[in-house]
């Protein structure tokens, strides 16, 4: 059975939810065996969590010469060594900021082809589907190389439970030198916000939000349904929200189950970042707003009236 290595993202010693869809993608039609790698001391706990989705081996990855988390170069080098050690046919990660960084380094080390940010993979056909032209087209690309490297867009593949027995192991790559870049510091975000690209639901406010403090209205609604809050570029440019909240071509690309756009006109550059959402809802006071032509459900109305009611109704439904 071909083996797929998977780089797992953990946070405070726990597996992040977005990894489960990655395990599902890594398994294919259960044609692959999944070997998961973690870079923190939580292999046993991770094995418990990941075995529910089909990871049969969870490996604590390290380097001989020091801390694997001190440099993305070390993580990439250790993965390169793990490919040999575990005889992996595929090596997969998440297309998140850390995942993209490690896989960029890994493909360069191996001088191997690498497909980033894929939305689906077909092991039988040897192809993957990914966005081209800022979300305007989908490309089916051939998977090449003796080891196939790819990163998966978070939330693009729905996790499917598939319980297996799971064992844990350790692999310390024989790397003694440090990385060429070193992580000096992680600056935590002031607000401790949920990362947009990982959120199952996103509620976005466009330019008419009018002031930074008005995002509170969206945050209250988001809290009820475990959503993250996003912004359009016009709103970011006006200084109402930080760039880390921007959705779109020059912001983040997101694929949540539900995307609620409030006071967003529906520019192509905004859609480039969210059109792969499963369901898109628009709330706009102009019945002729272009966004209504390319979303699933619409409400015509003033967002400052509609959103508080939405929060209320969601709360009532939740309590029921």
């Amino acid at each position, binding site marked *: 059975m071909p083996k797929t290595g998977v780089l797992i993202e953990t946070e405070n010693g726990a597996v992040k939810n977005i990894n489960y869809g990655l395990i599902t993608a890594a398994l294919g039609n259960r044609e692959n065996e999944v070997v998961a790698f973690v870079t923190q001391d939580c292999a046993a706990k991770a094995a418990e969590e990941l075995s529910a989705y089909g990871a049969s081996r969870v490996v604590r990855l390290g380097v001989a010469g020091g801390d694997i988390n001190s440099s993305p170069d070390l993580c990439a080098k250790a993965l390169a060594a793990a490919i040999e050690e575990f005889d992996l046919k595929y090596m997969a990660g998440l297309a998140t*900021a850390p995942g993209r960084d490690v896989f960029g380094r890994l493909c360069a080390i191996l001088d191997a*082809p690498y497909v980033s940010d894929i939305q689906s993979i077909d092991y039988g056909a040897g192809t993957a589907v990914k966005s*081209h032209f800022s979300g*305007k087209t989908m490309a089916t690309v051939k998977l090449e190389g003796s080891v196939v490297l790819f990163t998966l867009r978070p939330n693009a593949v729905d996790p499917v439970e598939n319980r297996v027995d799971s064992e844990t192991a350790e692999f310390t790559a024989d790397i003694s030198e440090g990385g060429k870049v070193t992580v000096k510091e992680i600056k935590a975000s002031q607000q401790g916000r949920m990362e947009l690209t*990982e959120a199952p639901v996103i509620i976005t406010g466009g330019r008419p939000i009018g002031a930074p403090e008005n995002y509170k209205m969206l945050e209250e609604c988001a809290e009820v*349904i475990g959503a993250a809050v996003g912004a359009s570029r016009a709103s970011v440019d006006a200084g109402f929200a930080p760039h880390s909240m921007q959705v779109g071509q020059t912001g983040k690309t997101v694929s949540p189950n539900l995307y609620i756009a409030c006071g967003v006109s529906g520019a192509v550059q905004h859609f480039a970042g969210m059109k792969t959402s499963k369901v898109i809802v628009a709330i706009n006071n102009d019945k002729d707003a272009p966004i209504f032509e390319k979303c699933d459900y619409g*409400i*015509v109305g003033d967002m400052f009236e509609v959103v508080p009611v939405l929060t209320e109704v969601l709360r009532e439904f939740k309590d029921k």
Partner: protein
Amino acid sequence: MQVYVCVKHVPDTAANIKIKGENDYDTTGLKFVVNPYDEYGLEEAVRLVEKAGKGEVVIVTVGPAQAATTMRSALAMGATRGILVKTDDKFLDSRTASKALKAAIENDGAPDMIFTGKTSVDTEGSQVPYRVAKAFDFPVANEISALEVKNETATAEREIGGGAREVLEMSTPCVIGATKGLNEPRYPKFPDIMKAKKKEIKEFEPGDLGVDIPASNKGPLKLEPVPERSGAKMMQGNVRESVEELVQTLKDNKIL
């Protein structure tokens, strides 16, 4: 200070992409621009050289002959001169592109810094900066939105999720992949545009630089438009009614 900037010639993101055949697109009448992320790299390069008081900013493009026009707009933004490695491959694979960029830069001079964008908006590869860095054996940092270069040390910041930022340190020369937030690229003025017309663009065939473009890799097997939604189902009634209808519909469809 000798700074190189990799600049890709890409279709304007606002333009419609007309798919041609199975896996090609129509370029007639299609507007091409400097890859938007590369502009942040270029601006940073120009500022570094301005601050150093001497040196040049050389832009390097691997692309078709028409890319020269796109390069002129990068030259108008303050680059000194350009190098174009010519290929008609619309979907040049990232490994080959990186090898050509490396060869072109190495043939030209010794870089103190190399800038790229974080990703190409056409093929969305997100890997050339890493490959170019590896070819030179330089450190690399991508998706950089803040940078300081001092005494042969570069300190670079990138967002890593939820607004948190990672600060990376490395020695120069290094490769920096730029993204929005790094700076505000300048808008060229008329005299800059006129001056750019006279700036040098050296052209090379890949073979001149010892680069082999494999015939096997001609881009995607298939290119399809992302299906557009056909229009929203509008919720009816007053605010309360329409919101209830929406939430009920989302529940019924197991979205909530």
